[in-house]
């Protein structure tokens, strides 16, 4: 029976009971901007190979939470652990110094922003953008950098013939693929996606989502996906967290939340259609 399946579908792991501890464990995150509380006591567990979607309107704190998870911002309270390397889980990442934070960020966390200008150097070559991660991690062989860039770009289905074109001459979908290749260049355990397909037209959006889904399955990536597009959430996410004014108002399995929302705000969000 299994032998008759194509190799593509044979790679998909059957559902299993999760016995291992979560890869990402963030607890009680509080982030204030002056008197305004952007994220108020949010906790989040993500297991390896799981996609957690965060939905909510603009200003609900979802992007701030993502920046905290990417160690770009230090929250006022909370703890954050990542089971990405043997010793790493014992330390609270938020207590690390600047340099250690950066090392963790480079090696274990990949990020794709909505706006490619935030994540890419527009005037450098696409392959150089991907190679930058390896350079920061200490790779100094030009041949190895080329090979890694080629491998990572082809994994994110970027046409290799254009690998030395700068992102500014590429289309939006291509730019997102370069960002994805850059994020995955060092094979991180955790991938953070901040509205990765917003602003792309629907057909390109579907292609980028396909690539994301495939990479997530192949590499057993843990993904935290921030989006206000419920279609994207439904396609990718296993679990959903609904945020409003810095609080989590509802969380659960994607189907459960999107088909049978309990909280009035979630009901409003799910039924809001143009």
């Amino acid at each position: 029976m299994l032998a008759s399946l194509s190799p593509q579908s044979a790679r998909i792991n059957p559902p299993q009971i999760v016995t291992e501890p979560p890869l990402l464990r963030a607890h009680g995150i509080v982030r204030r901007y002056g008197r305004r509380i952007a994220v108020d006591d949010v906790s989040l567990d993500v297991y390896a190979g799981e996609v957690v979607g965060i939905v909510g309107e603009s200003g609900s704190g979802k992007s701030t939470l993502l920046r905290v998870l990417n160690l770009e911002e230090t929250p006022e309270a909370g703890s954050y652990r990542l089971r990405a390397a043997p010793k790493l889980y014992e330390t609270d990442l938020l207590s690390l110094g600047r340099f250690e934070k950066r090392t963790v960020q480079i090696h274990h966390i990949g990020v794709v922003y909505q706006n490619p200008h935030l994540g890419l150097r527009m005037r450098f070559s696409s392959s150089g953008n991907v190679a930058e991660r390896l350079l920061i991690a200490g790779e100094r062989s030009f041949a190895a950098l080329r090979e890694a860039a080629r491998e990572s770009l082809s994994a994110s289905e970027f046409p290799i013939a254009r690998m030395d074109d700068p992102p500014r001459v590429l289309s939006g979908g291509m730019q997102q693929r370069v960002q994805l290749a850059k994020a995955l260049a060092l094979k991180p355990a955790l991938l953070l996606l901040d509205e990765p397909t917003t602003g792309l037209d629907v057909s390109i959006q579907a292609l980028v989502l396909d690539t994301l889904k495939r990479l997530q399955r192949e590499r057993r990536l843990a993904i935290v996906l921030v989006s206000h597009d419920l279609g994207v959430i439904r396609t990718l996410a296993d679990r959903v967290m609904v945020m409003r004014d810095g609080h989590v108002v509802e969380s659960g399995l994607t189907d459960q939340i999107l088909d049978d929302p309990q909280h009035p705000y979630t009901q409003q969000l799910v039924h809001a259609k143009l």
Partner: protein
Amino acid sequence: MTALSSLTAPQQPYSYGYLDAHAKRELRRRMLKAIAVPGYQVPYASRELPIARGWGTGGLQVTLALVGPESIVKVIDQGADDSVNAANLRRFIARMSGAATTTDAVAATLLQSRHRIPEERMREGQVLILQVPDPEPLRAVQPDMSKSAQMHADADYGQMWLSLYEQLVRFKQYIQGASYPSLVNGRHIISPSPIPRWDTPKLHLASHLTILSAGREKRIYAVPPYTTVAPLEFSDVPFQVEDQSGRACRTTGVRNRFMNEIPQTDGTSQFELSDSGYAEKLANGIMPASTYYDENGEFYHAGILKPAVRPD
């Protein structure tokens, strides 16, 4: 009756060496700090001078703080002693300090230079003062100065190779013409002023002291004698100096020196020694001192310059 004037020091329009005593003391302290931490950019209060910022005020302040009546000063601009800027600075330094001037790189004790390090090997006790327009090597990859200061503190220099990567991708070789980033003493990356790649290895384990000063950006940094200076390179694509083979000086006929290209009306080019002090010695039949590069273009420290590799 004693005249009051005979009891006071004769009035002078300027203090010795133009800068006031406090300025010179500050500059000397900053220089000592720069020497103590090779390659680290020390901020200083850049003084007003009777030349405009960008015309060598950084170098001039260092020279004026170091010069004494017994000093012998050489000023180089683009390799030449006779350009307007070099002549102007040299005359000013001599007038303000009473120091002797020369065009001979071996005889000089203080050499202020823009763009070049002399072809003849400098010796212990000499000070080379380089004028720097932009001291921050990280500027190309990190425009935020507070972030680049953090990167220097963390020795977080990975991104510097990104510009080299781009050069290799586009041109299959390092093409950066000047200010080639180099790692000093295994710790700080410096932008060694706009000297050509040809001159960059001359800083490595040099016998002389090099002080680099940026007047507009208010930064001093130094390469002390016998300090390692490693131009950045990929492990599989070694650093290269400009190829001077096939170029002969049109007046002296020497080869394997850094040449100025002189375009001709028929579209061809002729070449001329860039180091005018060295050319002057050759023209007058004076035996020059030993040079950094020999007649075959071999560098005096063996094994520093490796054969070229073109990546595919």
